[in-house]
């Protein structure tokens, strides 16, 4: 092993305590002369003047270069041994740093063989100073780095392959995200339609990173005077749940056109889901479906709805009163070949808002240890604080609530607010 900045000698490995003992004799046996060690050391040695002119070079390095001593000493500079990249690097980094620090080690360069080949090497240099501190010459050791370079190239190849794989994985992921986004859009309306005499707003919060939620909602016209709406939650997660969501949405839309009576629409959906998912892998959903009939003369909106297995809707009255609109006993949709659904009716006076939600909200975990559930009572209290506000305001407040619940939301949450606009100088635009 060559050591930098030190003339190699037979005593390099000696025990300092016993200079003349058996160890010294042993070393003498191994290396009969310092000159022999210099010339044939397993690394290249090079001494140059401060301008780079080669003053001394060992046999090992000459053999690597395929050069005669006479052609090199006094005739070539260190940079003449280097490739163009090496020359540039020498001028811009190696030489300035050596001048700045007096020494430099382990720099990767390539030297040129006389035959045109290239040998990767690791170069270390140290400046030797004269008695007055002036720089006199540069001592350089050159290590053969072919094996190391081969290893580095393997690493490089592996790194490039890994980068390529990562890029492909990213592209795949991006394509998948695009596909999921398109699918997700087929499950939810882009925007709610503008309904004369009605104030509508919605929000969807997904808890899963793949963005394929199992909650759904919609609002759409069924004839000249009426609109239908629904909101629900499909059991399960992921692509299978999304397929059920899609089937549910389009079945309800078609059923509403055929017969907008809420119990009829849910009965149709029940038959379709039960027929499709009968057997060992039952798929079902909870849903509220309803119709809206705004009356332009009074500003009132008449609501008929029915629910199957779904938490009850909330009504926020303009006078501050807030109550659940119970639909007890409605069965999960799709479980049994025939099912009962519970209907309810209410009239929204101007300033009243009907709020539909999924249990992602009421089942959100709260408290420091995330073991308590947010619950129906808390939602009722929260809604009461926002009674009399527009549908947009109510949804905005609930969006803030979802933000506050944060990672306590285990499941997707869908929110739909339908309000009869207040008559007095309130100026909220309809959605």
């Amino acid at each position, binding site marked *: 092993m060559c050591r930098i900045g030190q003339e190699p000698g037979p005593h390099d490995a000696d025990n300092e305590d016993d200079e003349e003992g058996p160890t010294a004799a042993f070393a003498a046996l191994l290396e009969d002369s310092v000159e022999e060690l210099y010339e044939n050391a397993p690394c290249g040695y090079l001494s140059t003047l401060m301008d780079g002119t080669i003053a001394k070079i060992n046999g090992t390095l000459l053999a690597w270069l395929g050069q005669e001593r006479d052609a090199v000493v006094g005739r070539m500079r260190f940079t003449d041994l280097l490739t163009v990249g090496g020359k540039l690097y020498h001028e811009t980094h190696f030489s300035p740093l050596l001048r700045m620090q007096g020494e430099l080690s382990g720099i990767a360069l390539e030297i040129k063989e006389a035959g045109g080949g290239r040998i990767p090497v690791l170069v270390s240099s140290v400046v030797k100073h004269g008695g007055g501190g002036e720089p006199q010459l540069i001592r350089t050791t050159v290590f053969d780095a072919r094996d190391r370079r081969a290893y580095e190239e393997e690493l490089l190849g592996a790194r490039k392959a890994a980068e390529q794989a990562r890029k492909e994985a990213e592209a795949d992921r991006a394509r998948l995200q695009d596909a999921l986004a398109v699918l997700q859009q087929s499950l939810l309306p882009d925007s709610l339609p503008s309904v004369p005499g009605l104030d509508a707003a919605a929000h969807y919060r997904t808890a899963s990173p793949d963005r394929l939620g199992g909650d759904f909602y919609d609002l759409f016209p069924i004839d000249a005077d009426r609109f239908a709406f629904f909101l629900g*939650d499909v*059991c*399960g*997660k992921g692509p299978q749940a999304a397929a059920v969501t899609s089937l549910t949405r389009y079945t309800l839309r078609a059923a509403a056109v055929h017969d907008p009576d809420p119990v009829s629409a849910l009965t149709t959906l029940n038959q379709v889901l039960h027929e499709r998912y009968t*057997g*060992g892998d*039952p798929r*079902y959903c*909870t849903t509220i479906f309803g119709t809206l009939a705004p009356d332009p003369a009074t500003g009132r909106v008449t609501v008929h709805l029915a629910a*199957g*297995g*779904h*938490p009850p809707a909330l009504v926020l009255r303009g006078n501050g009163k807030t109550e659940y609109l119970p639909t*007890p*006993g*409605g*069965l*999960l949709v799709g*479980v*049994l070949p025939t*099912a*009962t659904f519970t209907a309810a009716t209410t009239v929204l006076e101007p300033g009243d808002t009907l709020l539909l939600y999924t249990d992602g909200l009421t*089942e959100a975990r709260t408290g420091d240890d995330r073991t308590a559930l947010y619950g129906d009572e808390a939602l009722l209290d929260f809604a009461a604080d926002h009674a009399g506000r527009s549908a947009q305001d109510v949804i905005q407040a609930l969006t803030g609530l979802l933000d506050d619940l944060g990672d306590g939301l285990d499941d997707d949450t869908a929110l739909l607010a339908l309000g009869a606009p207040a008559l007095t100088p309130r100026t909220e635009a309809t959605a």
Partner: protein
Amino acid sequence: MNPLQTTIRHAPTGPVLEVNGDLDYTSAGEFRALITALTLQPGQRLVLDLTGLEFCDSSGITAMIVARNHVHAADADIALAAVPDHTLRVLRMVGLDQILALHPDSEAATRP
């Protein structure tokens, strides 16, 4: 998180499955496999004793529906015993209290 643990014993009415711990998204698959492996004779009753049920989410509810479909396919019946309040509230919400027989305890559920 309470891991799901189940114990099967046999009553004159049929198997009684004691369910302890959480029946949720992570454990429902194993529970469904266990249920559908049960063989019931026509007229028998599968009792799910839920005394030790700590938590049940929609996946657990689905597993109960799977159990119901499985026993009905064998012309057998299903009953739930000692349903905890938290799960009873959910069963009522989704209407399953109408289609699954509920009993205060497994003794009542295994009366012929």
